[in-house]
């Protein structure tokens, strides 16, 4: 994949309580591109995002963002870097005690000394970009799942970040909201000149908007390529994932003793 890299992950290993979660990960996210990390639940996708954001430290290897090794930064350095990142959490993670307007204004108020009328204009611009200018007075409890996700997106881009991370942005959305979010990811990435990393298991929607895909299984990258490469791939895991087959390299059955041993009369059922 061409382009100057914004995020570089090299030989990354991450273990939790001695259990390997990610093994030998190498990824590049170029500036101005939308890159997806796909894989089944629990394969280490969100962990990768948290490592890029500096919320976790790798066991070995490194994660570089804008030329800085994230886990070598002190608290101040990390917070300075995070001001140039935006993250959309799986269910929005909106602050429930604040209105839509205050949620989007949060970072502007925390990190800038802008006057309130300018903050108001900026917030309205961000909300307009996600189509929710008219909802600025609502509280998060009054929003649908799709609207909450769009407000969270407006909040994530409040400071015009260079990198936007999306954790399962399509999970639990109706088809209309799903397509709106997909479109917003593409257009906002272009409009801001940012890079986007989309962690998802929604293959069809994400393949419409991404430039490059990394497939992760059991903590390793098992396939990578453009959307077209992935659609055409005959690698068993990718094929099963893309076409949603119930059985394959990822088995339908949870590991268990032989079927006959468990159901034949006279055998212990709980063995």
């Amino acid at each position: 994949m061409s382009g100057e890299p914004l995020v570089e992950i090299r030989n990354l290993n991450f273990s939790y309580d001695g259990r390997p979660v990610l093994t030998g990960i190498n990824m590049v996210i170029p500036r101005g591109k939308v890159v997806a990390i796909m894989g089944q639940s629990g394969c280490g996708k969100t962990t990768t995002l948290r490592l890029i954001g500096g919320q976790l430290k790798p066991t070995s290897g490194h994660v570089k963002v804008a030329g800085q090794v994230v886990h070598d930064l002190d608290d101040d350095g990390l917070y300075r870097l995070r001001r140039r990142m935006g993250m959309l959490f799986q269910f929005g993670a909106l602050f429930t005690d604040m209105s839509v307007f205050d949620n989007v204004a949060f970072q502007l108020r925390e990190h800038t000394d802008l006057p309130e009328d300018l903050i108001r204009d900026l917030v309205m611009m961000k909300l307009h970009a996600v189509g929710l200018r008219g909802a600025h007075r609502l509280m998060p409890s009054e929003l649908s799942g799709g609207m909450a996700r769009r407000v969270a997106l407006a909040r994530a881009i409040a400071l015009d970040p260079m990198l936007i991370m999306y954790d399962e942005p399509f999970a639990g959305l109706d088809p209309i909201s799903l397509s709106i979010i997909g479109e917003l990811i593409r257009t906002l990435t272009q409009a801001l000149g940012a890079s986007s990393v989309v962690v998802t298991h929604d293959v069809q929607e994400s393949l419409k908007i991404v430039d490059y895909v990394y497939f992760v299984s059991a903590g390793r990258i098992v396939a990578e390529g453009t959307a077209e490469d992935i659609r055409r791939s005959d690698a068993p895991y990718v094929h099963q994932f893309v076409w949603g087959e119930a059985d394959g390299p990822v088995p339908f059955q949870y590991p268990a003793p032989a079927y006959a041993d468990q159901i034949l009369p006279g055998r212990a059922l709980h063995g």
Partner: protein
Amino acid sequence: MDNVITRALTNLGHRVTSRIRRLGFASRFFAMTLVYSGTALKRFNLTIREIYFTGVLSLIIILVSGLFVGMVLGLQGYDTLQRYGSSEALGILVALSLVRELGPVVAALLFASRAGSAITAEIGLMKATEQLSAMEMMAVNPIARVVAPRFWAGIISMPLLAALFSAMGIFGGYLVGVQLIGVDEGSFWSQMQASVDFREDIVNGVIKSFVFGVVVTWIAVFEGYDSEPTAEGVSGATTRTVVTSSLAILAADFVLTAFMFRGV
């Protein structure tokens, strides 16, 4: 047999070390809360907002409880004192019981159940719904922005609530003792004024309620921050806040009383 003993000892050791580790984390968390208190004090409107939620919204339960505790003290106190012919001393009994002991302790127990549990549940739910993670990713320290304002709000609210509890209790004692039973009003107030010492009684009571405020709010914010991010985890943390705070209040009360009134 040996295996059973080894396993039991291993379990015991594991429990003890995990408790000690948690206590260490709680102490570090307390230190970090103090270090990051700058935001809470500089942007005092954040703390004022929390004083409303922890202090003002606890007023009803504190005032009503104070009134009833004072009324009971009036009845019980009169019943005992009149046996010795000193029912005029009812004002002293009610005031000293409240200012020295019942005011700070009962107000703190009520504060732990009403405000402490609410603080833990709120922070725990913020963690479960990734609001704290979102804040971190927005380069805003959740300890400075969420924990410290609640911590200082609790410390400021607690002595004020204890003072209001005692004032309402004295009024309850007056209602029962003077208005209902007929103790002489002049004796009730004058003996109270003559016998309650500002430094020995009032200041010591305020010190107690301040310490209880620190203990309850520290436990509440820590349990919320350290809770498992699940419904069960938040529920368990809220219960632990009430139980641990209540025990800590009673233990701290004994220690403080032993130091304050040992010469009396």
